Each structure stands twice: as C-alpha cells, then as structure tokens.
C-alpha cells in the first residue's frame, strides 16, 4: 500500500507541476506579451490582451495586430520595437480590411511562425515584403496593361518632361511650388490616376496657364503629340502598385498567354495560372531549387530551368534575365484571385470576369505581345525550342506577300487542329474580329509593311495527277513536312484547317520560289542535290497535298 501511496504522491505532484507550467507560460510567456509590454499609447502602458481585426464579409479574423500592435484599429501606439510600429499609409485601411487579405499568412494564429505561415500544413505563407504588391492581386486585376517597352517609354517621357517637379507619384516628386510663393499649389498626386481617373483636358489647362501665369512660362512648355500619348499611357497605368503593373507588362510582353490561361483568357498548352499565387510551398519539390524553401525561390528557379524544377514540364527555358524573372515572379505571386463578397468586388475584376475586358492593351501590338510572342518571337521570326514543334516565322516577306489578310485572319481564328496554334477566334472569350484585324495589320507592320499580292485566280485551280504528285511529294517534301504533311521540322502543310483556307497560288508559289531565310528552297530551280521541278509537277504536288488533307 505504501508503494501506491508514494506513486499517488509523486504523480499528483508531477501533474500539479505540469499544470502550473502550462498556466504560467500561457499567461505570461507568449511572445506577444513581451511586445505589448514594450508598447505605449498617449495614456501610458497599453492593456496586455489579444487584439484582432475582424471582417465578416471577407471571413477574416486577423490577430496579426496582437504583435503588430501599432497597426491595431483605433490605437495610437508607440514602441521601441519595429514589430509594433504603425502601418504606412495605404489605400485600404488595415483596420477595415485586416492584414491577411493583402499579405497572406495565417491571421488566426498568435505565434510568429504560425502567423507568418512559414510552417508545415499552412498552404499560404505571407508574401515576402519585396513582393508585397502582389497582394493586390487577391482582389484586383489591372486592366489594359501595355507591353513593358511601351510602359518604360511612358515612364521615360514622364521623367524627361520633368512632371515629377510638380506632381507626386508613388511617393516621389511634387516638391516644386510653381510661382515660388507658399500659396501656390503643387500639382496633384498622380499615383492612382489609372483607378480614380483624371482630367482628360489637362493639357489644354496647362497650356492656358502659360499665357495667364508668369511663373508657368518658365515651368511648362508645349508637349508634342507622341509624348502626350506616352504620358497618357503613364497616367492610365498608375494604379497604386507600379511594380505590379510592370510585372504584368512583362507577362503581357513575353506572350505567356499563348500557352497559359489567367482568369478567362489564354491558351491550354501550359497550366492554368489563375491561382498560381496560392501554390502551396509544402507541395512542391525543392530538390533542384537552390536557396531557402520558399515559393518565390521555386518560381524563380522554375523560370530559369522549368524541366529540372518540375519533372516532365513542357515549358521551354526562355533564357530570361534575372530582372525579368523577378518581375514574372511578382506577377505569378499576384495570381491569387479570391472569391469575394459583392461589396468588395472591385470594378476592374468585374470588368475582366463578367465583361471580358482585356488585361492587356487590345491593339495589334498589345495582342501580339501578349499572345503570339512566346512562339513566333517578338519580331515574328519564329522560334525553335528543343523537343517542341518549331514555330514558323510569320513576318517572312515571301509569306506575307502570298498570304492574304483573310488567310492570316482565318489562321488566327481557326488555328491549326492538333498543333500548338490554337483557334484564337473560336475560343471562349477569344479574340474578336476587330482584334484579329488589328493583329493582322500589326503582323504586316512587323514584317516591314509587305502587303499581299492580289490573286485573280480562284482559290483552287491546280490540276495534276495525284499518283505522280504523291511520288514527287515523298521524294521532295516528306523529309521536312512529314509523310502525310503532319509537320516535322517544316510546318504541317497537310493540316486540314490550313488546306481549307490556303489558295493554290500560295502553295505553288511557295514551292517554286521557296522562303528566303529558311530551309525551304525554291523548287523551280535545281540545286546540287536535286533537280528542278516543272510547274506541272508542282501543281501535281499541290493536288496530292489536297488529297491527303481530306483523308
């Protein structure tokens, strides 16, 4: 019995000890207790308690302000600790929106690593400070973002014309007071003109000021039209998150949408990126990723070397520069569109999702950059990635001369079945007829303005013998274009959508004259390895080609 008594005594003492330890550490030794102890408000020390920002509409309860106590709603708190500092001024009040909706992380948590989401089993770690503006993507979708070249040009114009002297943009500039006296107004802040709008007649107003105001004579000069167009681009893209707009411009410039879908627009060859900012870092392989196991490092490495990062990835290594990769990483992290209650649904998102507004500038240049560049190249010269179907040049003068606008437009609209070229006009939310026309015009512009030669003949006119045509095809064409025209190094000329729109003139001329700058040599003249073909033989090949296309 004594043994039992001692066991009871020791066990009870142990239980008591553990309970006391639990109670003490719970009530006094949580990290946030120390942080709050260091903080003061105008009345003195602050009450030590859990704090949170609750937003029932967003279904968030963010306890981040328990440590970041300086950001707690309605409190003026000063502390020697950086963690307890106040939030810098932003468009959306943190005391209404909370923290996680922009920054990610685990709002319910009250310990550091859990709250920052850098723990196992939390799928959404905080966005790194460097990419903080990616958080805007939770709700917002910047629309009509131009290519990075246009955007950079716009920024240069704004700088060159010294608009920063009077105007403030993203916290920079706006220091000069025109007129020299303190009553003179500095120019308005232009950081959000793309959202809030601006007076479209501003230039007229500025010019009028030169006449009426002595000081303005020195401060302002007339601006040529093309510079004003650049300034318009700059003003239209000020959405309070200039780095995010730059990132999106990069995405819109590299033609990523040709393979990847974002929201409701884009190709299917690559994965749908719409929610790729929510990728769970615990679910990706860091085996070949240098550096810390963080999502941004994974994304960067993926851009550098897609196949070694994701085994079996079809994405070619694009040879991007580090600053491009940085921008694209920011953009990918910003793809985190959450389901939102109507009160918080921003206009840009509504326009993109419900009315199909483009996220790029929908002129010829913008569409080409956003959709076509990745495959056909920035200058339309075609690309060739190891292991993938080669993509033909579409600015080759021989091509542009033979291809009618209708032919190019139909190619864009209907695509090529079973090939990387999608039917961009027939897809859901695909390109409209106007957009296709603009694109065709831009492709001609890229090709140096070569226009199609008028073709008086009907579309199909070639006559010949299929059997001899087949023999000639096998001997001369099958090596590059495939036995059935399915395409190898050369394009898929047996593809039915192609044969449905191409004219015999286009085919015979291409065969006889070839295409300059490609391995397609003209067959009307011989070479050291083969004899020349006669026009009737070329016609026979065309007839044969049409016969295999109908199979």
């Amino acid at each position, binding site marked *: *019995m004594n*043994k*039992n008594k001692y*066991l009871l005594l020791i066990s009870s003492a142990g*239980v008591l000890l553990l309970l006391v330890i639990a109670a003490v550490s719970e009530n006094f030794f949580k990290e946030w207790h120390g942080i709050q102890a260091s903080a003061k408000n105008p009345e003195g020390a602050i009450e030590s308690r859990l704090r949170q920002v609750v937003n029932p509409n967003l279904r968030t309860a963010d306890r981040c302000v328990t440590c970041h106590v300086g950001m707690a709603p309605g409190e003026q708190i000063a502390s020697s600790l950086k963690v307890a500092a106040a939030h810098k001024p932003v468009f959306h009040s943190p005391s209404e929106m909370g923290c996680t909706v922009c920054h990610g992380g685990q709002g319910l948590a009250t310990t550091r690593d*859990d709250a920052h989401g850098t723990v196992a089993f939390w799928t959404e770690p905080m966005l790194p400070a460097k990419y903080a503006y990616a958080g805007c993507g939770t709700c917002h979708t910047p629309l009509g973002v131009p290519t990075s070249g246009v955007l950079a040009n716009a920024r240069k114009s704004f700088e060159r014309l010294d608009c920063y002297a009077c105007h403030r943009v993203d916290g920079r500039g706006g220091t000069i007071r025109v007129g020299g006296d303190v009553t003179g107004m500095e120019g308005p802040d232009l950081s959000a003109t793309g959202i809030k709008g601006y007076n479209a007649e501003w230039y007229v107003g500025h010019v009028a000021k030169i006449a009426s105001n002595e000081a303005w004579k020195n401060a302002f000069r007339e601006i040529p039209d093309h510079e004003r167009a650049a300034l318009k681009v700059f003003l239209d893209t000020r959405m309070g998150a200039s780095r995010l707009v730059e990132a999106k411009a990069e995405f819109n410039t590299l033609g990523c949408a040709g393979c990847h879908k974002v929201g409701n627009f884009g190709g299917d060859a690559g994965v749908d990126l719409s929610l790729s900012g929510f990728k769970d870092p615990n679910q*990706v392989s860091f085996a070949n990723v240098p550096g810390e196991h963080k999502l941004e490092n994974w994304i960067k490495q993926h851009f550098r070397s897609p196949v070694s990062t994701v085994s079996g990835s079809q994405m070619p290594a694009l040879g991007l520069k580090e600053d491009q990769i940085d921008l694209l990483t920011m953009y990918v992290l910003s793809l985190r569109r959450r389901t939102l209650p109507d009160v918080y649904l921003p206009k840009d998102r509504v326009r993109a999702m419900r009315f199909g507004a483009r996220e790029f500038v929908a002129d010829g240049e913008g569409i080409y950059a956003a959709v076509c560049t990745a495959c056909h190249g920035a200058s339309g010269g075609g690309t060739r990635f190891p292991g993938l179907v080669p993509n033909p040049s579409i600015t080759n003068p021989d091509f542009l001369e033979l291809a009618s606008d209708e032919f190019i437009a139909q190619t864009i609209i209907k695509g090529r079945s079973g090939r990387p070229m999608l039917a961009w006009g027939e897809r859901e939310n695909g390109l409209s007829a106007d957009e296709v026309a603009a694109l065709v015009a831009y492709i001609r512009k890229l090709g140096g303005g070569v226009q199609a030669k008028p073709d008086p003949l009907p579309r199909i006119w070639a006559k010949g013998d299929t059997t001899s045509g087949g023999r000639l095809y096998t001997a001369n064409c099958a090596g590059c274009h495939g036995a059935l025209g399915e395409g190898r190094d050369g394009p898929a000329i047996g593809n039915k959508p192609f044969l449905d729109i191409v004219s015999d003139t286009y085919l015979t001329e291409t065969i006889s004259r070839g295409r300059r700058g490609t391995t397609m040599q003209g067959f009307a003249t011989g070479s050291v390895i083969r004899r020349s073909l006669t026009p009737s033989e070329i016609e026979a090949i065309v007839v044969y080609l049409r016969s295999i296309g109908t199979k």
Partner: protein
Amino acid sequence: MASVQQSALSEFWDNLRGVPRRLYEVTFRNGVPKTDRTRSTFIFGNVFLHLHSVRTHLWSLRWSTTAGLGIITTAAFLITVITGVLLMFYYKPYTDVAYQSIKDIHFVVPTGRFIRNIHRWAANVMVVAVILHMARAFYTAAYRKPREFNWLIGWGLLVVTLALSFTGYLLPWDQLAYWAITIGANIAQSPREITDAIGITAWFDIGGLQRELLLGSDKVGEEALIRFYLLHVMILPIAICMLMAVHFWRIRKDGGLARPADADERVASERAQSYPVFTEQPEKTYQLAALVKGKTSAVGKGPENTLPSMPHLFYAELAVLMLTVLICLALAFVSDAPLKELANPLVPENPAKAPWYFLGLQEIVSFSAFTGGIGIPMLCIIGLGLIPFLDRETAGTGEWFGGPGGWKLVRWSILFGFSSSILVEAFAIRFGWLREWFPSVPQLVITLINPGTVLTGIFAVYSIWLVRRYNSTRAGALGLFTCFLCGFIVLTVIGTYFRGPNWDFYWSPSQWQAH
C-alpha cells in the same frame, strides 16, 4: 399562541444554525469513514463506490496481477471526457467553421492547444491500454467461468473505444481527417468487392448502404461531420459509460479479479506486511457476500487474505489514475496533436492514412479492401468474442500465460508470429502480389489469397498444431492470440512508418518525395 410562535421560530432558528451539521450528517450518513466498518458502509452507501466490493483480495492488489491496465483505460477515458467537454465549448461541427474553431482553440482559447493535446494523447493511451488490458485478461485466462460475460462486455468496450477514437478523427476537418475518413468510408463500402465480383451490386449493394449510413451522403461532407460529431460526443460516450458500469459491477459479482486456486497461500507473506486485517469485526459484510455465486468468491472461505477496499484499493486506483493523468499531460507537453491543412476534396493526401490502429488493416486493404476492411476485422472480432466459449479448461486461471505450454509456448509464438508476419510482408513488398504477376487476375482471387488471408491461414494452422501437440484448446488459443498481436504490431508498424505515397514501401518517411 405567542409561545407557540416563538418556539416554532426558535426551532426554525435552531434548524438554520444546524444546517451545516445536518448537511455533514446526511452526507456522511454512517459517520466519518475512519474505521473498517464505517468505510464498508461508506462504500455500500455510495452509488459510485459500491461498484467495488467492500474488501479486496491481496492477490488483486499486486501490481503484477493487472498492471493497472483497466484503471489506466478508465482514467484515460475520464481525461478525454473532461478535456472533451472543454473542447466542446469552442468546437463548431460545421464544415465551414470546424477547422477555424480548432485554430481558435490552438491560438486563442487559454491553454486550448494543451487541452486538445491532452485529449488526443488520452485517446491514444486509451486505445493502447484497452488492447493491453484485453491481452492481460487473455494471458491470465481471466475470461473463464464465471467471467465469460464480462469478457464479452470488455469486447464491446474495445469496439466502442475504437469507434470513439475513429469518430473523433474527422472533427478537425483537416486533410488528415478528411482523407482518413474517406478511406474509412471506402472500407465500409468494400463488400462491393464481393458483390461486384459476383455481379449482384445492382440489387444488393450492402457496401454502398454501409458507406451511406456512415456518411449520410455519397461523399465526406457536412452530413458526415454532424453524424461523427453526434456519435463522438453523445451516443458512443453514453454507450461506453453503460458498458463500463456493467463491466466494473460484474467484477464484483464475479467474485473479484480472477486469481489462481492457490492464491491464498502465495499472498501469505504479503499479508504480514499489510495494514492489519480486521481492525474490528464487520457486522454484515459477509451476509451480503454470501449471496454472491461462484466458487472463486469469498463465500465459504472466510475473509482472510482480503483487505478493506477503502483505503487499500482506492489508493492503488488513485495512484494509477494520477499516473495516467501525468503521462497524458507529459505527452501533451512534448507532442502537439496534428492539424494539417484545411480539408480539400480536390487535393488527395498521398499517402492518405487511417488512424494508426487501423493501419494494419489498411496494409491488408492495399491488397483487398474487403479482406482488410471487413473480412479480417470480422474474423478477429468474432474470434475474440468466442475465446471464453472455446477454451473451457481450468488449469492456469489467474496465472500469467497460464495453461499448457505456458510462457515457453508464448515465447515461441512471439517468435513465430513476428517472423511469419515479417516474412509474408517482406515477400509481398519485394516480389509484389498476384496483381503484379497476373494483371488480369479477377479481384475475387486476390480477395481470397492475399497477405492478410495467408497470414490468417498460417496462424490458424499453427494454432491447430498447438492444440494437437498440447492436447489443449488453451494452448492453441495462446498461440493464436500471440500471433494475432504480433501480426497486428508488424502490419501496423509497416503501415505507419514504411508506407509512403501510393502506398509504396519506403525505408523512411524522409525518402517520400514531394509530389
């Protein structure tokens, strides 16, 4: 009139002053339990304590008799009840807020995470203890007459304990829970493997029915959560309380714990060291005890070698109770209860694992859902229930490993059980099974021939051989039960530590590749 009023008033005043004294008297109706006699009446007069007998045999008080396993199980249950009720204050059984409420318990409820940890560890301690307790009862042959019925009650308690633990598994609504229950539900559906094979699923879908009963829907969702919650916090706790009451009470009615026929002689030395027996003559204790049936009761043998339950047994029970609390608290201190990502039906866990005590079955399920999920469990459950009816020998009752063969037989059986389970598993892991060799083999064949059934067959043959060799059912039972435990351990360990994504074999979880 005045004097009457006055006396009634003063009586009222006296009564009022006398409340504390009367309260004390009605509470301790037979005086303070200081003497053996008042202690006996105290036990008798208390509805909870009277589940104990008034006096306890010295044999029962030995630590080696039971290792306190029954009390550990009970203590763990009490801990889960207390912590569980605390958790219920904050837990919300709705799919859209359940996970969030667990996060709140972790981060905001004072010591909430600690309480949840204790709850989880107590539940695991309870599962382990109830299995060990069953093994103790088996190895000491305590299930024999007159305790067959109590063995069956214990058998029910085992099933309800596992059910309690399993239903609690879903409640956090995280990935672990969601996919474990998905596996569980698919196992419930596994009779389809048979009905499909013989082509009668269309009109006799017992598997689909079981699954639907379990989930209340065709997928794991809100209906399943409410169902599991109700089972976990109400129906199963009530069931287990009732079974426990009967279980404890039957111990007394069956004459205390099983002990060897010569227990009295063997405790003689301990008696001398104990608190003196019979500090005073009891008045009526043995009149009641005389009504108790059975030859192992104290009837006719006199009260020698028994001690008053209060305080001897109570000290032992309280000591084990507090020790269990200490163990659960200590475990809760060093190890957090898991909480994975929010349940996401679109992202399957790979591997998705059932609770650990079902991983042995899941290991067999990986070959045949029916065999692992229904066939073998039913065989085990029926087999365990039949033990007291098949072994009706008397030799060795109350002795550890009592009966023909004894510890030597058990030792060999441990060796045999472990080696045969490991060999069969190693073979299946190294060389694959029928499906890998003959991809077109009908599933019915695998249902009949898989590592689970092969092991069952080996164990069955081995125990039949033991029955013949020792000419004793008990010997066969000892061998079979030991092999069963060994197989359970081997399969559970393999399922827990050596199975990774796609249920492939891995030497260590660190080799699982991110997928």
